[in-house]
């Protein structure tokens, strides 16, 4: 088995036995949605009109807050150091972590998006559309939030600086994802899909390079 395969297997093994990451993400996600629903009130018309932007904002904050779990423990217990000693490149470590985070986020949202859409009176027929938009934008969001978690290791856990450095990069994704017409089953979202995919193609190599540098820096 190649090195990346071994690393991915390790990450999935950890993910399978530790539901902490999935629970932390899901609980924050649900709590934030409930708070929004209660603060807006029982008017389903208002609730359904703000559902999509709120969904992406909550996904973003849940990702930033839970991304630490994927990096922090390996850093604290020396596993990041051990992995590098064992000959796994920083790029491979970053990609393996991204994949495991992506799978955990996509799986959680597979249940969370339909569940939360019920609170906001969203028609069940357009949930698939929402999930597709989420699927195309989530890889970029995951890569950015992992970079943000690695930054937080470098800047001595100062979350404020972490937000300032990384959050602006999430904005284009949020704009293009939440501006899509979720009730449209035709092809009018095609351009936005391509833009989001383009963002992913730009983010992937850049985040691998930055992730590699940040992982290497943890040894210093």
């Amino acid at each position, binding site marked *: 088995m190649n090195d990346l395969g071994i690393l991915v297997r390790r990450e999935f093994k950890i993910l399978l036995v530790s539901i902490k990451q999935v629970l932390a993400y899901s609980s924050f996600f649900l709590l934030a949605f409930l708070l929004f629903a209660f603060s807006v009130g029982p008017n389903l018309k208002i609730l359904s009109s703000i559902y999509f932007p709120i969904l992406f904002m909550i996904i973003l904050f849940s990702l930033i807050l839970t991304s630490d779990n994927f990096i922090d423990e390996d850093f604290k217990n020396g596993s990041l150091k051990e992995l590098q000693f*064992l000959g796994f490149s920083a790029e491979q470590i970053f990609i393996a972590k991204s994949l495991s985070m992506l799978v955990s986020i996509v799986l959680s949202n597979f249940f969370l998006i339909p569940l939360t859409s019920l609170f906001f009176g969203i028609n069940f027929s357009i949930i698939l559309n929402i999930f597709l938009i989420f699927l195309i934008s989530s890889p970029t969001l995951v890569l950015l939030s992992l970079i943000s978690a690695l930054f937080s290791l470098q800047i001595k856990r100062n979350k404020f600086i972490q937000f300032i450095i990384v959050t602006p990069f999430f904005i284009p994704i949020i704009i293009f994802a939440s501006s899509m017409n979720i009730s449209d089953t035709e092809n009018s979202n095609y351009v936005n899909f391509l833009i989001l995919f383009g963002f992913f193609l730009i983010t992937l190599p850049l985040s691998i390079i930055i992730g590699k540098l940040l992982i290497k820096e943890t040894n210093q």
Partner: protein
Amino acid sequence: MLEVKSIYLNRNKKQILSNFSLTLKKKNMILLLGDNGVGKSSLLDTIAGLIKPQSGEIFIEGKPLKEIESKKKKLFTYIPHENCLRDNLSIEENIRIWLLLNSISINDKDIFKKLNIFNLFDIKDQLVNNLSHGQKKKVTLTKLLFSNTKLWIMDEPLNGLDQKSVKVFKVICEKHTKAGGAILFSSHIDPKLKITKKITLNKINNIKITNKFFNKWGNL
């Protein structure tokens, strides 16, 4: 087996190693002694290739470290001072992950046999989170029993170990050196092991080397 030639190392804008050299031959055991913060861990991290020195060279089995980056795990085993264990996994799961990362295939019977050397078999299903510091250290040292390499490098391996485990550790080390292996390890206290050479690291440029330092076994 290991040769460190004129290493100069700076960390946090401070020089911690100046013109440091070391040679470790087969069947030898070298102890790095020194107070906290004198640079023992940094030196071992440098030998393991995790930190790049300002100048100087490291040779493993006669080959420069730079040339064997991807083959390091086949030439030597490095146990850093952190335990490198996932808290939410059991002892057995952690060992299996380490074996996977090292591409070592071994049957269950042998795994359990080796876990029993440090009396870990009965608690193999316990989560690492519930173990004491000493027990975690024992799990980390158990990794050595699975290693096929001749050279072992360990950072503070005796930290937190009880007297019985220290004796077990001594036996393992003696067996390894008798079989043609070599060991380099650090400690902030003199563990009274049967060592070939003791190197006392003090603050910069004050390195005292005692050759042929043979101690009697087990006063601990």
